[in-house]
């Protein structure tokens, strides 16, 4: 029985990696969707449309941390073709793109560190932590995304 469970788990894992390797464009879109949803929750709380809670704030920040650490691995050579708005600059200026990813990860990491165990205590603390993270959306899109 244990072997079966392990076997299934292994299959699932290998299935996931297979999907990631086969279709990096789909994976990075899923990651960016999660970033968009986290930004939406954050913006809703900042605008006062959604009541602030520290747990929700921390969840949004944690999503950014996870996305920032994973996102950059899904841009293999050749994945500039297809249904994507990734700019050719990602491959032409790989170092610049890596620097943008590093900044995103550093800002998200700093927000996580400022969150504490229960999340940022109030909306002002959340804004201070999350504001710089969300600034990455625009600067990175401006440089490394094309509009279609």
């Amino acid at each position: 029985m244990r072997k079966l469970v392990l076997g299934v788990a292994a299959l699932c894992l290998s299935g996931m990696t297979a999907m990631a390797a086969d279709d990096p464009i789909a994976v990075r879109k899923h990651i960016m969707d999660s970033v968009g949803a986290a930004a939406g929750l954050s913006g809703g709380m900042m605008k006062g449309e959604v009541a602030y809670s520290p747990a929700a704030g921390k969840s949004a920040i944690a999503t950014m941390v996870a996305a920032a650490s994973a996102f950059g691995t899904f841009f293999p050579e050749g994945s500039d073709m297809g249904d994507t708005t990734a700019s050719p600059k990602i491959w032409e200026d790989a170092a610049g793109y890596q620097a943008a990813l590093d900044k995103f990860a550093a800002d998200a990491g700093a927000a996580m560190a400022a969150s504490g165990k229960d999340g940022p205590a109030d909306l002002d603390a959340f804004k201070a932590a999350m504001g710089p993270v969300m600034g990455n959306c625009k600067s990175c899109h401006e440089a490394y995304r094309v509009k279609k």
Partner: protein
Amino acid sequence: MFRKLVAAIVVLGIAAAAAGWFLSAPEHLPEEVVANLRAGDAGRGELIFWAGGCASCHAPAGAKGEAKLGLGGGQRLDTPFGIFVAPNISSDPRDGIGAWTLAEFADAMLKGTSPEGKNFYPAFPYTSYARMKPQDVSDLFAFMQSLPPVSGKAAGHELGFPFNIRRGVGLWKRLYLDSAPVVPEDQLHGDTELSILNRGRYLVEGLGHCGECHTPRNAIGGLEKTLWLAGAPAAAGEGKVPNITSGEGGISSWSASDIAYYLESGFTPDYDSVGGEMVSVQENMAKLPASDREAIAAYLKAVPAH
């Protein structure tokens, strides 16, 4: 008979040329307006500067932070009429506009006429700035003259015939330079207070010159005011500039607070981020008081939908 016909054609031709020369003459501000110009307040002028988006074209492309205050020009606008190159409008007295008088600056902003009495091309959106209040022009001038000089003239425009004839712009101005508001008050719908709508109208139709990109143009570059803010092909490049009315393909699903938040933060209602030419515009709008962004939003919700 034939000689008479030739003579008539020659006379008519001369008359047409004379009329064309007369009609294409660059206009100046009326003397009483010039006489009433007061020295400006540079502090107030800074807000006018951001609202007017001067740096988006006259600072280096992609400039951020302090670099936006270096107005040496040089950005190229590749349009169907040719390539326009933004000139140096820094306070450098030789290469910029540091030697201009306030009256000359006001003539440029409100009439599209240079200190040498030549027509500016409407790539410089004086067609919108013509709606500015004289005091705002003075304040803007005071602020711009306080910015650092940048030496070096920008390159000239690269225009083909007939667009390379500057004088001809005078005729164009007779058709399209109008300081009256585009949308009359009685066509602004909704229940927002009129004073707020008028502030929004001033910012959108005048200073912000939003219509210059968001409204389609006819074959000779005049704005199709019956399709005000209905979106247009991008002047440069292949893209499309979106419809920002509540019409089809427009932004009817955006609330006024969505619009104001977008101008402040750069996030659309579905949390995509602002892109393209609009990045620099949004960064300018973020420097205005919240009440101005709200007024712009209220105006956009109130204009006729196309």
